């Protein structure tokens, strides 16, 4: 086990961590604003991956360009999901909301199995074997692009939330819905917009990973669990926390991969997850509950 192998693993972990961050940001936005734990988030990412796959194979659109398709498509799906399915149960007990999103997730995943078969699909771009060479390290170009995409989108979301009027409205609605209503903010509208943004984030994450990750109906499952870990680690509702958390979990995964063979590598993350839930459920950057 030489230093280059370790560095390589850590860098790969960091890069994929960027993608985890992006997925988690969508999840944490939705939770922060609406207190909804969106189990279907992974399925949304999966839809983004398939959108990219089909755009590439049928229309020869480069995956990174198909982000432009993914964003509106996933936004609309997310907004519709919120408006028609979630709004009626906003006041229902928490576990019902969880079950509803689980139901949607089941439906979407198996719809994908029905439409596109459970077979793994791969998006083979012309530059899939392009590497950046730094000394003895070889870093996959696609992973770097995925990381950069994640950073750009994270930046956009952060800018949106902190500098725009919409962002202010979203933050108001999340902190004090009744107060926001009194200030003339259409809280209902904010909810589906936020959900749409969250879904779009998942979709972009899907697009960015499709080039180097196999695409199959239940791929979202891994990502949604990881995203939950990131969100809990970073603090529910904290965008900054989701960002940092994603990178940390990416690194943890890399470490796990170095120590344990095969499927066991996720065990580190799971144990970390359980420990955080027990000892610091508000996360590293979380505030109230």
């Amino acid at each position, binding site marked *: 086990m030489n230093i280059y192998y370790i560095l390589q693993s850590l860098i790969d972990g960091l890069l994929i961590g960027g993608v985890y961050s992006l997925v988690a940001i969508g999840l944490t936005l939705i939770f922060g604003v609406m207190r909804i734990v969106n189990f279907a988030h992974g399925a949304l990412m999966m839809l983004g991956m398939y959108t990219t796959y089909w755009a590439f194979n049928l229309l020869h659109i480069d995956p990174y360009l198909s982000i432009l398709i993914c964003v509106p498509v996933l936004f609309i799906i997310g907004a519709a999901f919120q408006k028609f*399915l979630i709004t009626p149960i906003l006041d229902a007990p928490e576990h019902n909301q969880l079950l509803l999103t689980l139901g949607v997730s089941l439906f979407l995943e198996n719809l994908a199995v029905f439409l596109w078969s459970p077979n793994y699909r791969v998006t083979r771009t012309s530059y899939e074997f392009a590497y950046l060479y730094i000394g003895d390290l070889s870093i996959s170009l696609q992973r770097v692009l995925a990381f950069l995409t994640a950073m750009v989108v994270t930046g956009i979301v952060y800018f949106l939330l902190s500098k725009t009027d919409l962002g202010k409205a979203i933050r108001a609605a999340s902190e004090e819905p009744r107060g926001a209503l009194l200030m003339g903010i259409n809280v209902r509208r904010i909810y589906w917009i936020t959900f749409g943004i969250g879904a779009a984030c998942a979709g972009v994450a899907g697009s960015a990973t499709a080039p180097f990750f196999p695409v199959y109906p239940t791929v979202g499952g891994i990502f949604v669990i990881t995203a939950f870990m990131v969100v809990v680690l970073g603090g529910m509702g904290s965008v900054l926390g989701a960002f940092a958390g994603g990178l940390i979990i990416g690194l943890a995964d890399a470490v796990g991969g170095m120590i344990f063979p095969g499927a066991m590598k996720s065990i580190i993350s799971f144990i970390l997850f359980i420990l955080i*839930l027990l000892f610091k459920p508000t996360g590293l950057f979380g505030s109230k509950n």
Partner: protein
Amino acid sequence: MNENKHAAGYLARGLGTKKWFVIILALALLHVLPWTIPSHIIHMMIMIFIFTIMGQGWNVLGGYVGQFSFGHALFFGIGAYTSTLLFLHLGLSPWFGIIIACMASIAVGLFVGLLSFRYGLSGPFFALIMLAFAEIFHITFITWKAVGGSLGLLIQSSGNAPLLMQFTDKIPFYYISLWFMAAALYVVWRFEKSRTGLYFMAVREDKDAAEALGINTFKSQMIAMAISAGMTAIGGTIYAQYLLYIDPDITFGAINSVEIMIRPIIGGPGTVLGPLLGSVVLTPLSEFTREVFQAYSGVYLMIYGIVLVAVIMFLPEGIIGFANRMFEKFRTR
């Protein structure tokens, strides 16, 4: 006027002779049934009974105490693997193995419960922690060759061996699963209106109020977890003996957690018959869809998804809860 009400026993209620008669009749019919129906229907009924047992286990923790677990496959797997491993390595009859499996499951459950409830985890966090634990076991059993790894464990058939819980015919399994199911239903019915059951529901309805009234909410949750884990594990052992083959996916897999919990949720969480009703509705539905859409294995799960969403939106208290409310409306007319 008051004296009449006091005597009626609204809390410590019995079922009354009429209801007992119906139950005895139903049981009698169920005993006769397997001799009159084709083999694949017997199989379906065995599945209904087994999943009712496991669903009822989930129900104790989820429906009555309000702690929804998304990882009950954990106990299913522990049950199945414990009895199977004890049989394969020590030759221990599953009739004893089932007891050990139950205890092992309770031990793990209490461990998870200790971690979760001591720190006051609830709601989505508890659901996810259970999922995480189930996945940890799932991954571990896939990787660990000594317990069969991803290939699973095969129990060599010894033909008809009642002492080893093996039968060449389905009908004995029908009776075994029927009796265990009846026992599970009875256990829940007994504690439902007892101090234990009322305490469970108080914890579900309002933890603070429960504590203020002298209820040790941690203890209540732990008791519920123990019953829940044990009951589900029993289903796991019966399942393993019936199929004579288990692997990490069909026991610890996340889908099984869904299968276990969806039945009481649809049927009516927090009711005695909810898991049975849910099983009766969903098991044939999934068998039927699997028949019709043979090429597409996922369709029945799509339907689960739709049913789950529909029930949450329109019948959040499950079928029984909805029926009860309708009865209330007619009663107060």
